[in-house]
């Protein structure tokens, strides 16, 4: 989070070479418009902040149509933190009251209801219908391991398989854990993606999450959502003002570690040909590429095929950056690109693995949109299948 002066200096680092233009998924969707390129967005941000141009509707739309996939940022030869600067520009627009209404509503909802859907916090455990017996004595109990479920997997029935699988795996391994249940609040990621700045309201939510887990004396916090992971890992310590009282892991890191320690044994053969969608916030933004692949390698029978490109250069599914909320038509276009890429991977592919509820949700939606029948498999579900 920069001050305005620092913000301008960061924007000025851009030498407009256009490397980002060559990799940005959106510029292809928008027929190469300069204003749809990361370079164009940085340029507009500079013009806006320095009052050289007004916040036109096109400018606002372009700043809010970025997937936050981060490929521009890791490609930039000048070290410009392009994606983060675009978020900072959203913050600027939000402060001016110029962000899209849908975004404003989301941010208000998060603050008001502590989740992204505006639903009752009491319903946060709806996902756990099938594992009630396992978790009933674990909610808000002291344990070494804390689970952060995240809003998407908590409330969206189609994604319940992810937290369910985690719980079943931990239960299978006799690893004690805890979760916050109704007390879990939005991690804050969508708030920041929408342009919300660190303020007292979001601080209260973030500190609430930290303190609730701290009271339970957890040593490790595990989350399956890359967005939650990124924010808890990188922004929470800033808001908390010191090191968090627990370590933060994405579930792929945690299970990979358990496999390496021979605690988690993957014995059951899964005779499927699968590929993997690198979630942008997990892979490019947090550098977690290898752990999921290590897991696939250990699953007997599984034939793994890489998408081309992958890892650092992976193609975003379109599910990030709140674009699904603001410009769903752009997400639809990106899903076509994604499904084409998947179809070129291997014609006998049985499905795609994800390690992100947003990717899973979006790819499942892609099936409906494109009348496809792609199996979308959550990585935790896959692990569970390999042990049971």
């Amino acid at each position, binding site marked *: 989070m920069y001050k305005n002066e620092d913000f*301008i*200096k960061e924007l*000025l*680092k851009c*030498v*407009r*070479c*256009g*490397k980002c*233009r*060559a*990799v940005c998924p959106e510029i292809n969707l928008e*027929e*190469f*418009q*300069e*204003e749809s390129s990361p*370079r*164009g967005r940085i*340029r*507009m941000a500079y*013009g*806006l902040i320095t009052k*050289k*141009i*007004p*916040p*036109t*509707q*096109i*400018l606002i739309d*372009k700043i809010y149509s970025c997937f936050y996939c981060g490929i521009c940022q890791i490609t*930039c*030869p*000048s*070290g410009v933190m392009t994606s983060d600067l675009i978020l900072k520009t959203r913050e600027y627009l939000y402060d001016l009251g110029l962000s899209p209404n849908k975004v404003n509503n989301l941010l208000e909802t998060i603050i008001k209801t502590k989740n992204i859907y505006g639903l009752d916090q009491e319903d946060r455990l709806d996902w756990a219908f099938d594992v009630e017996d396992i978790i009933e004595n674990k909610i808000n109990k002291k344990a070494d391991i804390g689970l952060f479920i995240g809003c998407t997997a908590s409330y969206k029935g189609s994604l319940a398989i992810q937290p369910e699988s985690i719980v079943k795996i931990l239960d299978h391994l006799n690893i004690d854990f805890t979760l916050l249940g109704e007390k879990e609040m939005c991690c804050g990621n969508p708030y920041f993606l929408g342009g919300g700045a660190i303020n007292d309201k979001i601080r209260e939510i973030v500190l609430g999450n930290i303190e609730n887990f701290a009271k339970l004396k957890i040593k490790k916090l595990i989350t399956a959502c890359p967005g939650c992971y990124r924010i808890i890992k990188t922004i929470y310590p800033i808001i908390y003002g010191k090191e968090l009282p627990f370590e933060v892991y994405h579930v792929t890191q945690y299970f990979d570690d358990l496999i390496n320690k021979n605690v988690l044994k993957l014995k059951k053969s899964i005779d499927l040909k699968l590929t993997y969608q690198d979630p942008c916030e997990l892979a490019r933004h947090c550098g977690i590429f290898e752990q999921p692949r290590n897991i696939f390698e250990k699953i007997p029978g599984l034939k793994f095929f890489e998408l081309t490109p992958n890892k650092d250069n992976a193609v975003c599914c379109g599910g990030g950056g709140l674009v699904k909320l603001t410009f769903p038509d752009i997400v639809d276009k990106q899903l076509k690109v994604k499904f084409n890429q998947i179809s070129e991977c291997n014609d006998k592919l049985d499905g795609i693995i994800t390690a992100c509820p947003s990717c899973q949700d979006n790819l499942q939606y892609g099936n409906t949109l494109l009348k496809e029948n792609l199996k979308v498999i959550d990585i935790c579900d896959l692990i569970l299948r390999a042990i049971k």
Partner: protein
Amino acid sequence: MDKDELYKNIIKLIDKKYVSIDEAVLYCYACDVSNIEHPPDIVVRPNSVDEIVKIVKFAFDNKIPVTPRGGGTGAAGGAVPIKGGILLDLTRMNRIINIMIKDLQVTVEPGLVHSELNKILEEYGFRFPVKPGSSEMCTIGGMIANNASGMNAVKYGSTGDYILKLEVVLPDGSVTTFGSHSIKDVSGYDLIRVFVGSEGTLGIITKATLKIMPIPDVIGVLVAVFSDLKDAGNTVISTFQSRVIPSAIEILDKSSIIAINKYSPELHLPLAEAILLFEFDGYLDCIKKEIEIIENVCKLNNAIKIDKTLDNEKRTQLWAARSLVGAASNMVREGYSRVYIGEDIAVPLSKIPDVLLKLRELSVKYDFPIITFGHISVGNLHPAITIRKYEPDDWNKVMKLNDEIHKLAIEFQGTLTAEHGIGLARAKYLKLYTPATLEVMKYIKNSFDPKNIMNPGKMGLEE
């Protein structure tokens, strides 16, 4: 004509989805890589020759400036609409029209990105061999308009060497073609060469037939480290005297080595006066022989360390340093970032060591980090000057440095620009140093474009 009226007229000619007078959009199209800026009055994004013809005829009738633009990767303000008017973004016209492998040629539209063309040609075992650093972003039209080249110019020349046929829309809206599908063609004046490097001042390139070349079988690399700049310079001269033509010879001078070591310490580049990177391509036996010869040449010229490989992975590692220079230049001094000023001079090969030393002196004199690297095989240096862009004083100072660098190039019998073009950034130097050339250029410009609507204000043509 005001913007609103212009808009009303243009959307009668082209779908309004591809026309914009939004201030933010105009601001995006107001610049290239250089520090030159001016917004157009309108951005128009045609998708066919017919649309271009309609727009240009309208502009001609109403005397409205038209500035064509490709990937916006120019470094001299060539595609900056300095007099406003219509900015023609040609990136939607990116089709490959015909691949004629047996005839060694391909016909493309101007908005096609260079690397995209080569991805397609690779399937046939061919390529368009000129390779600018901006290959992934720059368009074929822009390459022709600037006569772009790159690291392998020593063996493969510049874009202009590969143009067989051009279709252009002239300033009055008429469409004409120059050249043929014959690889050799001296039927009349070489009007293709008039358009090559004309930077959009004579008309709009709408189609180009390019000569293509087979992809070499193997690529080899040799890296040599020198403790004396003059030894590095002499090595290049000796290379050609040994009757070897590498596909590239690049130099990293001490400033680049320091910058790269700051940016990527894991590369552990030796803190030497200069590093030369050689690339060879062709059949294996031939390359092995060439590497052997050049290794001896380097040794005879006092190289203190030599590394070589035919392995692709190791080649990438050895070239890693070269690919990082641009990024590294921003890291040398906190708060200083690269400006494209005085960044493309070229001098005779024998003068390179002296020019490099002069650039070091200028860096000290102006107190700006200057990170120098370049295509030494053709005498082309890219001094990357870094300044505090937010400090007006730095901009004043760097403009004086700009004058000194170009003067230096001329004093050493060189040129203002080897591959980036004149645009507006170097226009004043063209008048200063080559006034006779400029007079002939004005005559040609006036013949093609008597109303001066095509990219006006560029190349010193109005001075």
